[in-house]
């Protein structure tokens, strides 16, 4: 097979990153965010700034059409202003929607300098601030991809089934706005994105190619956020599950926190509605973030990473890899107090 991704590699800064927090990731996967920062600082020795004055990029509001473009680009300009204040020039928006927003704003400013000037005027009028555009904008998954071979020697585990000795078979799902809007911004571009596949292959796993690999997770912004529209969201996710089911993946890996949540939670919903799961045994297919996967292979505690936040349980996958964990600590609070576990679903096995 022709390896198209070798034809294009994007520039990824080496160090000194300005980190921007994701609405969805901090809400559903705060452990992944903490793991990403820990991996960069403690495993790779990188400098990454988490500025307390940052805020949303407005991306979900923008794509739900409740925030005008002029507002979004000026909010982006304020975030760039914070970066400038801190003395950084490599911007890392942690959500794929954010990454899409930033690449869109940068592209429009490049094509239309008057628009960039308008953003300067808006930001000055609103905040008395000035900004500079970053030298480099990358998604956090780009950084983990860049350093995947540096991380490998530090890893305690590989993506190998310890019972069979064979590579684990992995479905990767790339968030649409990572490369579909601006293909040149994604490793491997839009059709053959390699950002997650590169991690999987480097760490011993096998990537599954399947027909609906590039289909949207089904979020659809207003199509999920308004309850009456959610049929759109679950129907599109179901299409992906039906397409990947015959390949019997060991787990799904994502680089977008929203996609991860939908691929996890819609499995629960489909199981409860139709008594259908997409694995053989009724437990569903575990869905990991790339930060969780990296942390697990490095030997981080699964419950500190937040694997208990997923509705499809990950223990069977941990057992396949041979990752040690204490089941009694799964539902402990931060002070060690044991909390009552979540209720069990009627159909999805946990």
């Amino acid at each position, binding site marked *: 097979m022709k390896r198209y991704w070798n034809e294009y590699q994007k520039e990824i800064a080496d160090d000194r990153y300005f980190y921007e*927090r994701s*609405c969805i990731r*901090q*809400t559903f996967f*705060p*452990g992944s*965010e*903490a793991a990403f*920062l820990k991996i960069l600082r403690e495993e790779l020795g990188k400098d990454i700034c*988490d500025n*307390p004055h940052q*805020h*949303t990029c407005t991306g979900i509001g923008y*794509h*739900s*059409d*409740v*925030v*005008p473009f002029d*507002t979004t680009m000026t909010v982006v300009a304020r975030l760039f202003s914070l970066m400038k204040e801190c003395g950084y020039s490599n911007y890392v928006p942690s959500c794929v929607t954010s990454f899409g927003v930033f690449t869109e704003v940068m592209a*429009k400013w490049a094509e*239309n300098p008057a628009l960039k000037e308008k953003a300067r005027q808006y930001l000055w*009028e*609103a*905040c008395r*601030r000035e900004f500079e555009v970053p030298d480099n904008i990358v998604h956090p998954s780009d950084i983990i991809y860049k350093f995947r071979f540096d991380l490998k020697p530090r890893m305690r585990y590989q993506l190998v089934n310890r019972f069979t000795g064979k590579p684990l078979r992995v479905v990767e799902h790339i968030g649409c706005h990572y490369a*579909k809007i601006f*293909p040149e911004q994604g490793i491997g571009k839009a*059709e053959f994105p390699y950002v997650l596949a590169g991690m999987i292959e480097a760490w011993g796993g096998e990537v599954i190619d399947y027909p609906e690999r*590039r*289909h*949207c997770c*089904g979020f*659809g912004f*207003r*199509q999920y*956020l*308004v*309850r009456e529209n959610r049929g*759109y969201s*679950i129907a*599109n996710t179901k*299409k992906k599950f039906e397409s990947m089911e015959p390949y019997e993946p060991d787990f799904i890996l994502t680089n977008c926190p929203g996609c991860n949540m939908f691929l996890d*939670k*819609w499995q*629960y*919903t489909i199981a409860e509605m139709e008594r259908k799961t997409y694995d053989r045994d009724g437990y569903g297919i575990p869905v990991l973030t790339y930060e969780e996967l990296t942390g697990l292979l490095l030997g981080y505690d699964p*419950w*500190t990473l937040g694997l208990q*936040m997923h*509705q499809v349980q990950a223990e069977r996958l941990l057992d396949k890899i041979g990752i040690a964990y204490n089941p009694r600590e799964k539902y402990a*609070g*931060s002070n060690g*107090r044991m*909390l009552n*576990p*979540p*209720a*069990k*679903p009627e159909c999805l096995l946990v």
Partner: protein
Amino acid sequence: MGYLIDYLNQDVRFEESLKACMNCGVCTAVCPAAEFYEYDPRRICDTVQRGDEDALEQLLKSDTIWYCGQCMSCKTRCPRGNVPGELISVLRRASQELGYFSQSEKGRQQTQLMNTLQRNILEIGYCVYPDRVDPDYHPEQGPVWRWYHQHIAEVAPRLGANYHGQGAGALRDIPQEDLDEVRRIFEVTGGMELRKRVTDE
């Protein structure tokens, strides 16, 4: 040019979202919304490109423009470099500003979105925050989300979050002076004006 086409042209995104569509239909073939709804982005491009003011007004008053999920798969595939998903965003903005959104069921949902998403941004600095993802409104989130929602103050710190804390970190409270600057951006750039058009506040 007609009034509505001129109106759309005021949006900087309009010109680049629709240059010259040859009606090949690739956008419709790849579109997740077209699989679920009676939705055809090719026809939308055609309607706008024809410049028929009556047809355009009907489009802006219809459910049709609200079916798109903004995945932007159409941008990758269009052989002419058009962006139907971005064109939709331009049409939705015009529909709201001109008041046409209120004439369709899907359009009227913007009031709800304005009262959740935009309010979240202005009040807490993020589009989404766990306190505001109510398990009763989100039954699809399942029992694990209900558990987390109930125990977040005890669980979030274990995951490295700074839940309602000061300073840096996930789930922290954003300083009021930063929220004030974000609100001022909305006031200066038309975000609050759009809110007024949609919510009558």
